[in-house]
């Protein structure tokens, strides 16, 4: 350990020398790894956003109950309140219904100006426990005077399908990224060792311990993957910022996780992964040259 600490400066100068010996290969490897890590970050952030949307929808789980005009809405309301799994009910009249839709549609809501009268019907907004949606819908539908019960279960189910798909895709990409990173890193380390074989041989003849000879190569692999991880984070920052601004402008009703939160999470994941893969890739590269 004393030797490593005493020679820290030497090890970093050695990395510089090793990298300079095959500069182009190192640059191309870093670019390739950056794109690979970028792909991984995109999948992670996509998965995170969908998860967030599902949670948001689950928290806001509600059904809309439409009723016939000739019945007292409070009677339906009191019957609904008695059903298990109901958290709250709210009576929405025609004007409020139109205001809600106007807010959701934004500029597109100008289409309502073409109507002579308010096209929206009054309804009862019922907040529910999501896991009981099926029985609640069934019981509410059976109440006399209820014409239509609309739930967002289909949307939720679709989002959950997308989330599962992203998880599966994410797993496949993590495996692909890991394999590609290990191959690229170990290859560049092997190349570095090959180009420095004379020096390595001299150090061995001088009695240098193996860790002293290997450490610069391991550090080179680590530096390469961590640099790639950082570059992928910069790319993700730019792309995600654009996606967020576009989503906020055109799809304001979609709830996104906090930008800083998601970036911090992805930076930690990418750097952790690039460190681990860099270390393993370097060790692979060194091991394969021992034969």
């Amino acid at each position, binding site marked *: 350990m004393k*030797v490593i600490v*005493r*020679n820290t400066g*030497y090890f970093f100068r050695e990395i510089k*020398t090793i990298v300079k010996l095959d500069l182009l290969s190192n640059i191309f490897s870093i670019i390739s790894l950056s794109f690979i890590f970028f792909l991984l970050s995109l999948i992670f952030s996509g998965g995170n956003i969908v998860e967030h949307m599902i949670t948001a929808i689950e928290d806001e789980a509600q059904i809309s109950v439409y009723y016939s005009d000739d019945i007292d809405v409070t009677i339906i309301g009191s019957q609904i309140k008695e059903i298990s799994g109901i958290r709250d009910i709210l009576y929405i009249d025609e004007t409020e219904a139109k205001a809600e839709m106007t807010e959701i549609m934004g500029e597109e809501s100008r289409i309502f100006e073409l109507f002579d009268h308010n096209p929206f019907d009054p309804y009862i907004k019922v907040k529910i426990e999501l896991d009981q949606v099926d029985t609640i819908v069934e019981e509410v539908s059976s109440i006399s005077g209820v014409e239509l019960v609309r739930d967002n279960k289909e949307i939720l189910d679709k989002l959950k399908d997308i989330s599962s798909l992203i998880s599966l895709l994410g797993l496949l990409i993590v495996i692909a990224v890991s394999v590609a990173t290990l191959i690229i890193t170990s290859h560049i380390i092997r190349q570095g060792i090959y180009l420095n074989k*004379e*020096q390595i*041989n*001299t*150090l*061995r*003849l*001088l*009695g*240098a*311990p193996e860790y*002293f000879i290997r450490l610069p190569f391991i550090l080179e692999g680590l530096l390469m993957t961590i640099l790639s991880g950082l570059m992928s984070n910069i790319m993700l920052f730019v792309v995600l910022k654009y996606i967020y601004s576009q989503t906020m402008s055109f799809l304001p009703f979609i709830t996104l996780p906090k930008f800083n939160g998601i970036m911090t999470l992805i930076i930690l994941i990418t750097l952790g992964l690039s460190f681990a893969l860099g270390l393993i890739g370097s060790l692979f590269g060194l091991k394969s040259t021992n034969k």
Partner: protein
Amino acid sequence: MIIANKLYLKYPDGTLGLKDVNLVIPSGEVVYITGPSGSGKTSFLKLLMGMESPSDGYLTVLGKDMNNINNRELRRLRRSIGPIFQDFKLLDGRTVYENVIIGMRFLDFSKSEIQNLALATIKRVGLDHKINSIVDNLSYGERQRVAIARAVARRPLLIIADEPTGNLDKDNSLNILDLLKSFKDNNTTVIITTHATHLIEDEQDCIKINVLNGKMSTEEVSYESNC
């Protein structure tokens, strides 16, 4: 101390490098191994360095049995040896100072000890004015002095110089031999191989070992002490 008894070295292709070598080299001696090219001088040094293993017979170097030495012990042994290779094996792109301290970085010296030993040795080989020069830009003789400085700066128990006079004229050869001899002390043995026997004719206070009948064929190679 180096002890060889009925030592043989046979290369994988069947070439016999050394045959029936018997010798004892005490510590603190200057030893010249002479003989023409291909006679087995370098093969003997390779055995001392652990670059080859004896095919038969017995060899101990600084108390280590070279027939049964493991990698860990070999690394330790090499740290006690200061080798000067025929091709010098300097680290290209590095300065004289960097090349000299590379062999000391992993030894039990403090940072200041490394610095002091390196500076003193570089001065002793006459390269203090080129301490920060890149070795690639040095002359043959200067590169050789860097190799010598690297070998001796780390205070080895055994200095091995393989054909240090190989490409030098007589005056420079004698200078190099004098320089190498000057590193001998009570603990440090200096072994020098050379095919230029005329350079050491007048040498006193040393051990001279001739590789006899030194043709490419090593059939009749043997070692004998002349001092």
